[in-house]
């Protein structure tokens, strides 16, 4: 018999036996899974980002189907619309979760924050952060090596080569918060997306005293408290030499933005005033 015929017969026999065993086992040990789990999972992004606090998207879907209420179960990646559909599938009321987005608490661009040293180690922020203040002298600012970019499952982050800072693509950011957890300097903050996407925040993370902060970065918050005085709604507080705007108290009047001498308070999505356009 030719070697080809032998091979065909032997492999064919092995195949048939294996198929039979697999068929029997799959019937005998069949696990009945709630069919809704697959339906829910189909609505999830499948990024397994962990923002929901579960082990992955499947685990989250299973949790939705067995939960008595959807309180505390929210997938920021899927969004509010998908969560409503999930609620319909499992027959529960959708929990109200505020849509969030990542914002960068650092305005230290290359021209405003001079480099004083050169870092040649492993190109990750985690390794650079272990060495101290880093290249620029600001011990709290963005290191610019892009650990946040690497962990983002939605492709929402990229490093701008001119500024050396990450840029957040609002259309893609789901507010899952994985970048905020990956940043060793805690420069990324999750904030409510805000009404019509309008947001005001302090783009600085430097806790040094004003004079020191000023030396390290021209865009640093110097804790002068002018923003606190400018705010009529008690939304702004200064703690440990750093100003913070409470997003739930902020009425988006932007008086603090005008008051800030170092332009450390940033805004998003406000129409550009006419005077600025002309200039």
């Amino acid at each position, binding site marked *: 018999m030719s070697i080809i015929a032998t091979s065909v017969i032997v492999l064919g026999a092995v195949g048939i036996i294996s198929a039979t065993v697999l068929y029997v086992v799959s019937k005998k040990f069949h696990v009945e899974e709630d069919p809704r789990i697959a339906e829910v999972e189909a609505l999830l992004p499948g990024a397994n980002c962990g923002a929901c606090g579960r082990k992955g998207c499947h685990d989250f879907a299973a949790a939705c189907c067995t939960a008595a209420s959807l309180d505390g179960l929210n997938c920021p990646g899927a969004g509010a619309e998908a969560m409503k559909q999930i609620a319909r599938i499992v027959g529960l009321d959708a929990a109200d979760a505020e849509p969030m987005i990542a914002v960068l608490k650092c305005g230290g661009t290359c021209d405003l924050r001079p480099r*004083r*040293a*050169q870092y*040649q*180690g*492993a190109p*990750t922020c*985690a*390794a650079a952060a*272990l*060495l*101290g*203040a*880093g290249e620029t*002298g600001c*011990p709290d600012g963005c290191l610019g090596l892009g650990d946040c970019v690497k962990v983002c499952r939605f492709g929402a982050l990229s490093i701008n080569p001119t500024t050396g800072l990450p840029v957040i693509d609002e259309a893609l950011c789901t507010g899952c918060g994985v970048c905020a957890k990956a940043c060793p300097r805690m420069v990324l903050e999750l904030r409510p997306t805000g009404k019509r996407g309008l947001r005001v925040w302090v783009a600085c993370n430097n*806790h*040094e005293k004003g004079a*020191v902060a000023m030396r390290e970065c021209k865009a640093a918050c110097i804790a002068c408290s002018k923003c606190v005085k400018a705010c009529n709604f008690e939304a702004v507080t200064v703690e440990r030499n750093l100003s913070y705007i409470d997003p739930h108290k902020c009425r988006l009047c932007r008086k603090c933005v005008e008051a800030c001498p170092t332009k450390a308070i940033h805004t998003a999505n406000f129409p550009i005033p006419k005077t600025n356009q002309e200039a």
Partner: protein
Amino acid sequence: MKTFSRGGIHPKENKLTASQRVQPLDLPTSVVLLPSQHIGAPAKSVVAKGEHVSRGQKVAEAGGFVSADVHTPISGTVTKIDTVKNPQGITVNAVYITADEADREADLKALEEEADATPRNTADLTPDQIIAAIGSAGIVGLGGATFPTRVKLSPPSGMKPDIVIINGVECEPYLTSDHALMLEHPREIVEGTELLMRAVGVGRGVIAIEANKPDAIKAISKALDGVAGIEVMPLKVKYPQGGEKQLIEAVTGREVPSGALPVAAGAVVQNVATAYAAYRAVVLGLPLTERIVTVTGPQVEHPGNFLVSLGTPLTDVVKAAGGIPNDTGKIVLGGPMMGRAAVNLDTPMTKGISGILLLPGDRAGRGETEPCIRCASCVSICPMGLEPYLIATLSSLQRWEDAENEKIMNCIECGSCSWICPSWRPLLDNIRVGKGRVGAMIRERNNNK
């Protein structure tokens, strides 16, 4: 001649300041003292602004079990309790003290008195009294790790060491501060060793010195004349022999079990400078307020070993050696293998700074990182028997559990792997990140138990 068995490398020694005498720097007129200049909890400041302090007075008190007191090297007035940037550019708490004319005179007189002080009779001190004297002098491991000596001399119950090893290895290239100390004060080091042996209750002491310091071996041997129970042991030159685990193995042949304290192998290891500080503390009653620093580098005008008071600005220390050379590309505190690069010299001297190395620009940089060629050099030289290429990769892939299984926590961060890698891979950088994460993971797991 003995050495440790596994791995090890032979970097160029570059001991430019070998056998140079110790040059004492003038007492500074103002100092900045950091309450946190040791491993463990920061000390708590015990002086107030405006208070007058005198030389040797405690200004900060140990803030926990693993912590150490801090004393002032000068008399003066506390001008402020504020912050200062450390060499890495991080803001830390600091006590500022400034001396006036009268303070200065008093200090210079005190210095003279210290030089002719009559040694105290220590024969009837109990081990606890010795440890207490070492603790209240604020002594920490002066090899660079700055672990509080008092804690190391009080092993957990059930562990009984049988040997005290005094580490005079100084395997880091460039550094010669321990070498200089051994030439200058061999008698005091031997007495300090005896005190440390009594403190932990052991009858055998070994002063281990690498064979590249024959004059130090001779000096210590001479000082050991008529002393029972202590021997000097020359060791074959190999980096990182000064590592605690490597030294224990080289001297006793015993291995410290993975994850255990060195005392589990029956040995207590102390640096020669620590032994000398113990002598000063117990016999002369002087706290730790100064240490020897090697200021060196290929282009440094007057490299040397300087006796520096804690709190002296590092810029002044470098000035004593002729200042920063023009083409300096990197400043390292400690040796080139394990030292940390400094971005700020406008910062005070601390207990852990054994050397200031000023490297010229062309020697400061790393090469371009290239792919791993699987040469396994890092595996063959790792003194802990690890696979550096593997744990570094697992760490960069954030596979923390796998890194833990590959014993990432056993890494002593000696840097041999990064040194030998022909592809300039940042192995130790990644391993350090992994150690931090895996350590946090293990702590969390233990807390949840």
